[in-house]
C-alpha cells in the first residue's frame, strides 16, 4: 500500500513541473480578505479555467497600505509581482514611479487583448488616467460614500424614517429629533477624511488642493481650510460636542456600531453594502450623501475610493500578454456586473451598469444604484475629478489627527484645518523634492 502511494507521489512530482511549464504564470497581489477575498479568488479561478495559456496566482498581502509596501519592497528586491493592487491614496506615488510601472494602455496595446478605454465610466477612470487620457492603472474596486439609514432606530426615536435627508440642514434637524427621542448614537461615520473632506469638497465643487487637486502638477497646495469645509466641520464638531455625532475611529470602526443597530445614521462607502446586508437585523435603506443647500455647486458629484491594478515593470513579454488577457477578463461586462452586485462596489464599465439594470437588480435591491447615480449624474469638474496628491496616506493621517482635535473640542475647525494645511503642505514639498 505504502509502496503504491510512494509510486503515485513520484509520478505526480514528475508530471507537475511539465504541466507548469506549459502555462505562463502571472502573479497578482491584492489586499482582500473575507468575503471580498473569496470573490477575488473566484474571479481568478474562473479566468484560469477559461483558457489554458496562462495561470494567474493570487496572493493576499495584508491591508491596502501593507500590500503597497510589499509591492514596493518586492520591486526593490527585484521580485515584484506582475499585478499589484494599490489603493487610490497611493495613486500619486505609483504615477511618479516611472520605470517601476508599466501603463495599462501600453500593456493592453502590446497584448492585443480587447480594450476600449471609452467603455469605462469617466469619473472612475479619471482617477487613474493621465491628463492626456491614457489609462495608467485598471480601476478594480471603486466605491463612493453614501448615507446608510437604520429605519428601526428612527422609529424607536419617534422620527419618520422617510424624512428627507438630502441636505445637511435636514440631517441636522433630524439629529436633534433623534437625540430628543433618546438615540445614543444618532450619527456615526467611517473614513472621516475621505467622506467629510475629500468627497465633501468634490460634492460642493470647491477645491481640496490647488492645481486641480494635484492633477495639474506636483507644486500643489492643500486648500481644505476653505470656508465651505470649515463650516461643515464646525457643524460636525458641534454635533460631536452635543453627542449627536459619535466618533469611533479613523477607519471603518463605526461600521460595527451601525450594523449592531446602535446608530441611526452612518456615512460610509457604498461598498459597506455587503457587510450591512449580511449582518444588520434591522430595516435599513441607503440615501445619497447629504450636501449643504446653497454651498458651492452642490450637489456636484462624489469621488471614488478603493483600489486599482498596477502592472509592474521588469517581466517578459509573454507574461505581459497574460496580464493583458486577465485585465480584459476582469473588465468584461459579466464579471463586472456580478462584482458590482455582490459587493456594492461601482461597476467600472457602462456596460456592466447597464447589464445590472436590465437584470432587474436595482429594482430588487432599492438604493444600490444610488452610488452610481451620485457619481455619474454630472460631468466632473476640476474640483471633482479626484485627488492626486503625493504622500497622501501620511497627509490623511495628519487630517485625521486634526479632525480628532475638532471632535474633542481642543481646536476650532478653522484652527485645525489651517494646521492640517501647513503640515500637509510641508509633506507635499518633500514629495515634490523627491519626485521633481
Amino acid at each position, binding site marked *: 500500500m505504502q509502496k503504491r502511494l510512494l509510486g503515485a507521489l513520484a509520478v505526480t512530482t514528475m508530471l507537475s513541473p511539465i504541466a507548469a511549464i506549459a502555462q505562463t504564470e502571472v502573479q497578482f497581489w491584492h489586499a482582500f480578505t473575507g468575503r471580498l477575498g473569496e470573490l477575488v479568488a473566484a474571479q481568478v479561478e474562473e479566468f484560469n479555467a477559461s483558457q489554458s495559456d496562462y495561470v494567474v496566482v493570487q496572493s493576499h498581502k495584508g491591508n491596502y*497600505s501593507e500590500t503597497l*509596501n510589499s509591492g*514596493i519592497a518586492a*520591486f*526593490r528586491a527585484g521580485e515584484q509581482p506582475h499585478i499589484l493592487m494599490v489603493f487610490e491614496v497611493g495613486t500619486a*506615488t505609483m504615477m*511618479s*514611479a*516611472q*520605470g*517601476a510601472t508599466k501603463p495599462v494602455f501600453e500593456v493592453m496595446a502590446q497584448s492585443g487583448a480587447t480594450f476600449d478605454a471609452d467603455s469605462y465610466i469617466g469619473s472612475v477612470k479619471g482617477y487613474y488616467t493621465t491628463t492626456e487620457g491614457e489609462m495608467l492603472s485598471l480601476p478594480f474596486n471603486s466605491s463612493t460614500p453614501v448615507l446608510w439609514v437604520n429605519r428601526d432606530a428612527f422609529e424607536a426615536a419617534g422620527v419618520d424614517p422617510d424624512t428627507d435627508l438630502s441636505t445637511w440642514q435636514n440631517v441636522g434637524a433630524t439629529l436633534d429629533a433623534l437625540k430628543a427621542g433618546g438615540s445614543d448614537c444618532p450619527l456615526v461615520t467611517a473614513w472621516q477624511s475621505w467622506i467629510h473632506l475629500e468627497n465633501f469638497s468634490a460634492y460642493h465643487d470647491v477645491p481640496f488642493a490647488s492645481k486641480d487637486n494635484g492633477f495639474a502638477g506636483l507644486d500643489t497646495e492643500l486648500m481644505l481650510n476653505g470656508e465651505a469645509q470649515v463650516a461643515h466641520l464646525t457643524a460636525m464638531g458641534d454635533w460631536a460636542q452635543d453627542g449627536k455625532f459619535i*466618533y*469611533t*475611529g*479613523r477607519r471603518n470602526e463605526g461600521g*460595527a*456600531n451601525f450594523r449592531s443597530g*446602535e446608530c441611526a445614521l452612518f456615512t460610509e462607502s457604498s461598498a459597506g453594502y455587503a457587510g450591512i446586508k449580511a449582518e444588520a437585523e434591522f430595516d435599513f435603506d441607503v440615501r445619497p450623501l447629504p450636501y449643504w443647500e446653497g454651498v458651492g455647486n452642490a450637489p456636484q458629484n462624489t469621488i471614488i475610493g478603493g483600489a486599482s491594478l498596477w502592472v509592474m515593470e521588469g517581466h517578459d513579454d509573454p507574461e505581459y500578454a497574460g496580464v493583458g488577457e486577465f485585465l480584459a477578463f476582469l473588465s468584461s461586462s459579466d464579471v463586472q456586473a456580478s462584482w458590482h452586485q455582490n459587493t456594492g462596489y461601482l461597476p467600472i464599465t457602462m456596460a456592466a451598469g447597464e447589464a445590472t439594470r436590465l437584470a432587474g437588480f436595482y429594482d430588487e435591491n432599492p438604493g444600490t444604484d444610488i452610488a452610481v447615480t451620485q457619481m455619474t449624474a454630472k460631468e466632473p469638474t476640476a474640483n471633482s475629478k479626484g485627488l492626486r496628491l503625493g*504622500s497622501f*496616506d*501620511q497627509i490623511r*493621517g495628519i487630517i*485625521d*489627527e*486634526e479632525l*480628532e*482635535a475638532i*471632535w*474633542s473640542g*481642543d481646536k476650532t475647525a478653522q484652527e485645525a484645518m489651517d494646521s492640517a494645511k501647513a*503640515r500637509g503642505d*510641508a*509633506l507635499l514639498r*518633500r514629495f515634490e*523634492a*523627491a*519626485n*521633481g
Partner: protein
Amino acid sequence: MEKRVKFRGWLLPLLLIAPQVVISAVFFFYPAGQAIWQSLFIPDPFGLSMQYVGLGNFEFLLSDKFYRASFATTAVFSILVTLCSMIPALFLAVIADRLIKGSGVYRTLLIWPYAVAPAVAGVLWLFMFNTRVGVVSWYLGQLGYDWNHVLNGGEAMGLVVVASAWGRISYNFLFFFAALQAVPKSVIEAAAIDGAHFWRRFWTIVLPLLSPTTFFLLVVNVVYSFFETFGVIHTITAGGPQQTTTILVYKVYSDGFVSQDLGSSAAQSVILLIVVGLLTVLQFKFIEKRVHY
C-alpha cells in the same frame, strides 16, 4: 585578586572575538552606516532616484513641532513603562518570596503574561477598553466615567503604558524573584535578631543587594520601552490621538514604512542612535556607580 588570562600572540584572541565583531559589523555598523548615508537624501519609494539634500532631512524634522514633542512623549512613556513594570514586579516578588506553600503556582501564573506577544497584548487591552464594546469602558461608563482613548490623549497614553508594562511585569518578576532567593538568609536573620522589622530589613539589606538586578532590569526595560513596545502602540492607538502616543521608534516606522518617506525615516534613526548612545553613557556613568555587586 585580578584574574587575567595571558595569551601568547594575537591570533587566538582575535579569533575568539571575531564572531562578536562580525555580528556587530553585519547587524549594527553596516545598517547604521547605511542609515547615516540615507539620511542625507530624499529617495523615492521605489529606489529609482535619490535627491541629495545634505542636512535637509534633519532640518525638516527638527522644525516639526510634533517631532520635537515626540521626544517628551518618548521620555514620559519610557519612564512610566519602566516604573509600572518594575515596581509591581518587585512587590509581587517580595510577596511570593515570603510564601512557604504554593509559591510555584503563583510563580507560574505570574510568568504567563510574558508569553503573550506585544501585538496580541495590545489587541487584548484594546478589546477591554474599546470605547463602544469594551468591558472595562462599559463598567467605567456605569460609574459615570466616559472613557474615550480615541480622542483623549491622556487616556490613550495610560492605556498603551499599561498594555506595554503588563507583560513586562512577569519578566521583571522572574529576575527579582531569583535575586531575592539569592539574598543570604544569615544576613537577614542577623538583622532580625537585632530587632529590625521587615520593611527596615528590606530597605537596608535586601534592596541594596538587589541593586545589580535592578540596574540590569532598568537598562533592559528602558530598551524595551524604546524599541519593543511598537506592536502595542501600533495595535491600540497607531500613535494617536494627535500624536500623543507617537514615540520616536513608532514615528520611524510610520514615516518609513507606511508613508515611504525613507529619507526622513533614516534621519530619525540617526537621531535615535545618538539618543540611545547618550542614554547608555548616562546610565553607566551615573547609575551604575550606585550599584553594589
